[in-house]
């Protein structure tokens, strides 16, 4: 019997990445349920949205006719971008909360709102370009050699604005992470950084690997997606220190509970 090891490897990677993302989503939902602080719940909320977006993006990439890379996928791609910015924003706010002096890292509180407005304006520009492309009867609005300059500018400005906002957000997150005394929060920022590094490698490594032009090159780049998903899971698990119940102390003595010292039986 012939076994296609490349297909097998590819399937294993898809399963591993999806499994890790699903596990991270489940854990994030659990944290959202048990955490009380508004800032921390908000962080859990946006992390869930970010993880769902990642899962959708990944599964969509495996499809024969991917939605996100089609013309019709523009709204979905932009929703994911906005979710990414709000995810970064919620993490910066949670990190600032654990800084006793509540310092505004790189003035993110001032910069945050204009950043979101800039992204919304940028999205509006892209939508206008798409509408104009329809009126101008141009075959595609994509960044091709044949597209007019205003279509190129309309597309590039979005990536430029998103890139600047995310780069600034990452710098603010690192600054806030360095200021906090909370070791768990520092670990979270570290794990998130490693995860983002994995995503960056996933996005960039396929360019040189693409010269090989076979499924093995896809596996080479997708391994980095698995690494990124793994560190995302670790980042979610760094929302708060999680212990294990000491089974020896896991049951409650009905005698000891609520009984003043003078009336109690000897402690078990």
């Amino acid at each position, binding site marked *: 019997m012939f076994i296609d090891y490349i297909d097998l490897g590819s399937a294993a990677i898809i399963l591993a990445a999806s499994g890790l993302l699903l596990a991270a989503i*489940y*854990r994030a939902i*659990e*944290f959202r*349920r*048990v*955490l*009380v*602080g*508004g*800032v*921390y*719940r908000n962080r859990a909320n946006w992390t869930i949205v970010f993880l769902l977006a990642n899962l959708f993006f990944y599964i969509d990439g495996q499809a024969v006719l991917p939605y996100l890379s089609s013309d019709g996928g523009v709204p979905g791609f932009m929703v994911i971008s906005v979710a990414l910015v709000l995810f970064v924003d919620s993490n910066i706010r*949670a990190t600032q*909360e*654990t800084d*006793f*002096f*509540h310092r505004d890292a790189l003035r993110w509180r001032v910069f945050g709102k204009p950043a979101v407005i800039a992204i919304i304006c940028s999205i509006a520009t892209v939508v206008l370009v798409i509408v104009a492309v329809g009126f101008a009867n141009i075959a595609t609005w994509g960044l091709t050699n044949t597209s007019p300059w205003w279509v190129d500018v309309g597309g590039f400005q979005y990536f430029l604005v998103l890139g600047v906002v995310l780069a600034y957000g990452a710098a603010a997150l690192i600054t806030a992470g360095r200021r906090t*005394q*909370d*070791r*768990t*929060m520092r670990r979270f920022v570290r794990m998130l950084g490693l995860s983002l590094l994995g995503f960056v490698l996933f996005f960039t490594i396929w360019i040189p690997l693409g010269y090989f032009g076979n499924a093995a090159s896809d596996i080479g780049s997708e391994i980095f997606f698995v690494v990124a998903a793994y560190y995302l899971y670790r980042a979610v698990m760094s929302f*708060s*220190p*999680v*212990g*294990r*119940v000491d*089974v020896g*102390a*896991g*049951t*409650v*003595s009905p005698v*000891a*509970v*609520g*009984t*003043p*010292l003078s009336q*109690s039986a000897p*402690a*078990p």
Partner: protein
Amino acid sequence: MVSTGVPSLDHLLGEDGYPDKSSILVVGPPGIGKEVLGYWFIRSGLVQGDYCLYATHRPVSDVLRDMKGVGISTERVPEWISSSGSPVRCDLKDATSISFNVKEAVHRNRDRRVRVATDVLSPLLVLNPVESMYSYWSQLLADLKQQDSVVFALAEDGMHSTNTLTTMEQVFDGVIEMRLYEEGLAITPLFRVKKMLGLPPLHGYFRFAVSSTGMEVVPHVH
């Protein structure tokens, strides 16, 4: 005894809550709900007519927003020592002034029962050597106990070494630990009463839940 503001916790601690003239330390990671215990403690005091003081490194507006978020009415508020929004300012770099202001406020109300809640322990521990903080808190709590007062302090888990926290736990009459625990795939918030003046050791874990209608504490069976 002084009510905790959470009936199920009062029951757990022997029907009436925290012991008179005691100091309680609540240890837990950020966002788990330590402050909520403090809010209910203060709220209960305000309802009973006690003098209540809240010393915090946060702005008053943040604390009030948090209180509303967990369903605590802010019609009646305690006296504040805070980083902003109060007549008396809380300057973390000046531990002496915080101690002076707390003692002064408590002394002014010596004819009433007093409740003090504070979250400044962790910042002060980060900014000062543990030896000096041990003396500082020992002295402050001893002075406050000269009057009919109960002090409720919060400490952030994960910001101090185990040795530092263990040292500070010695200073307090009661220590409650709040943490998240992993049970299979689920994550459960539990707390333990590590020690409490006048009570035998309370073995085991207690599950707690915070909602807009209050806080509930029930024994957790593993």
